[in-house]
């Protein structure tokens, strides 16, 4: 047959034309599946402020358990100055929304201490990911805890691959420390602003402030909380500022404030609240993070 040589070449060509692109497509799809995959375990990491221990959120957690009627289990970590980690409590089997409180032996205030604490937080975080294999989580920081989390997100999170933070809520976090000034930036704020490009782009951030009077919650100036916008705005997917007034709005009462508990449930834990409990907030901006599961 004179034509058979051509025919075989044609067949070979046809096979290659299908096979090679499908190979590339396959690789692409698999990485896509990997990046879209979310583990069932979806912990909320809580970091208390200065001078507080790993038990700082106990009242809040008791209240949350009672209200949500889900037995969120609690794991508490304490990181010593040497970097050694002590665990108390546990993540119960089958509980996919546990709380993990991370506190530090050195829980003092101040620029150097906060930077060190972020480093310790990173140690604890890596240990947690290695133990529990979650690839997405949310965060709650009270006071300086919010600063520690912010520094951690900018400086250290990139060290852990394939783990995405979804939501961060900071309660009365003084982004500009004790300064009431709207123009002068303290060292930590300067640093946070400088490295803000490294913040995870898909993160949703809520910054909650409490005020006893028009300017402060008794400890942290409202202006200092406000400075958070220079860090997050236009850097993360959504940045929302919320101010809570009324009873229990002094700085240390905030984590057990009724309104803030509702905010945590609604925004951080993404519960569907009965409409009477939902806060009549302004509509959140349209989210642009529609994730395609990619099923054909």
């Amino acid at each position, binding site marked *: 047959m004179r034509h058979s040589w051509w025919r075989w070449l044609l067949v070979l060509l046809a096979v290659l034309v*299908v096979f090679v*692109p*499908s*190979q*590339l497509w*396959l690789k692409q799809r698999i990485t896509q599946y990997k990046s879209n*995959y979310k*583990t069932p375990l979806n912990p909320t990491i809580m970091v208390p402020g200065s001078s507080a221990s790993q038990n700082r959120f106990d009242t809040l957690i008791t209240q949350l358990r009672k209200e949500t009627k889900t037995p969120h289990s609690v794991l508490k970590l304490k990181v010593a100055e040497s970097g050694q980690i002590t665990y108390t409590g546990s993540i119960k089997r089958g509980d996919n929304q546990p709380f993990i409180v991370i506190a530090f032996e050195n829980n003092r205030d101040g620029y150097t201490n906060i930077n060190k604490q972020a480093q310790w937080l990173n140690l604890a975080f890596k240990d947690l990911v290695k133990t529990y294999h979650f690839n997405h989580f949310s965060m709650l920081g009270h006071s300086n805890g919010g600063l520690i989390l912010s520094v951690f997100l900018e400086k250290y999170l990139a060290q852990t691959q394939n783990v995405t933070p979804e939501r961060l809520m900071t309660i009365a976090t003084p982004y500009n420390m004790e300064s009431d000034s709207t123009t002068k930036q303290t060292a930590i704020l300067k640093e946070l602003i400088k490295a803000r490009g490294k913040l995870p782009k898909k993160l949703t951030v809520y910054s909650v402030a409490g005020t006893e009077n028009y300017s402060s919650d008794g400890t942290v100036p409202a202006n200092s909380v406000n400075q958070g916008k220079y860090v997050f705005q236009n850097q993360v997917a959504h940045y929302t500022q919320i101010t809570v007034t009324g009873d229990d709005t002094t700085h240390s009462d905030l984590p057990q404030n009724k309104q803030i508990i509702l905010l945590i449930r609604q925004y951080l834990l993404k519960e569907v609240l009965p409409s009477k409990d939902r806060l009549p907030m302004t509509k959140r901006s349209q989210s642009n993070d529609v994730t395609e599961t990619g*099923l*054909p």
Partner: protein
Amino acid sequence: MVRLLRGLWRTNQRLSQWRAMRAIREALRVAYPFILVMALVDVVGQGFLSKSGFFFQIYHIGRWLPGIEFWQQGLQAVSIVVNGLVAVMVAFTTGHYLARTYHAEPLAVGMMSALAFLTLNVNYDTLGQGGHGNEGSQFLEVNLGPQGIFLAILVGLGVGWLASHLMQGLTTWWLHHRKKQLSWTGRIAWSLVVILSLTVATGYGVSWLVDGGINNLVYLALQTLSTNVGHDGWWIIAVTAISNGLWWLGLIGPISVAGNSSVTSLQNLAYAVQHGSGWGAPHPVTLHTLGDAYANFGGAGMTLALLIAIWIGSRQASYRRVANQTFLPNLLNLNEPTLLGLPVLFNPILLIPFVLAPAVSMLLAWAAIAWRLVPPIVYPVPRTTPGPLVGYLGTGGDWRALLLSLVCLSVSVLIYLPFVRLLNDEGDDDHAA
């Protein structure tokens, strides 16, 4: 083996003497070119232009083809009309051919049977709701497409027979009692009235019992069977065999292919994403990992293997022609034109390999997975992926799966081959495709 084949051959000869059998083959022969064009349109539409199409995805067609929506919608329109009404065509041609053998009015009877088929598929639930516009379709459109071919054949045969006899009976009755010739109009009008009353009554009665018409009754039963197959390999093979047997009867598509989104498949996918491969996936043996991956080349019944067997062993010109014409659709698992064109449907000789080849392939795949020679498929694969590539791509590029696919294909070709050779002896008179 030889005796079995000889017996089969005799059965085949006897069956093709039957008027009904001949009517079915003739009806399918007439419908074939329409279905072929449709399948080629579907190749482009489903394989290249639809978002879930295999070639759309591997060539990233959405990125570079201008006016993609125009092409999609244009092809969809053609597909809806021809593919969506295939069963009506079959009802017409069956009735038409049968009436011709009875020397009645073929065209009129054909139309009657098409109308009768439609009355069985009227959406009776939407009737009497008042004309508020588009609450529901007036016809059960699903049943007018390939799914309805079996019912269409039954209706065509029934109406063809009944109408032909009614007309003759009416003519003689009229002559006896009225002492004059019954007019042409009268004969057809009276038969039409009788037939439509019968079918409307049937259709209405069924609509009380079940949503979705007569057809749905069968499909519902099958779907409950296939959704609960579980992990027992024998049971999976049995269900597939039953399903393929029904395909052969023209009950097309009771078990939906590409169960990418069933719970077990999703759990397998989650496992693979975490562990990097499908080894040790929680559900290694399911309808999806066996059937969709290794027993569906070309569609139900491994028809891709049938085509190759025809290329190797058939001396029938018409068979070879159909094989060449339907190769491309078969590559994308759209095998309706092959089934109707050869025809495979109602062909007693091809029934055995049509059921056997997928069953043996599944058995091989089951053994290979159970002995841990290949991992199960875990990644979703488009429905229009060329059959032998499904295993390879679904396992994330495991060459052993590709090898197993080729083994399954070769074994299936070997299963088809003796039956295809048997058909060489068939008279070429009624094949003119």
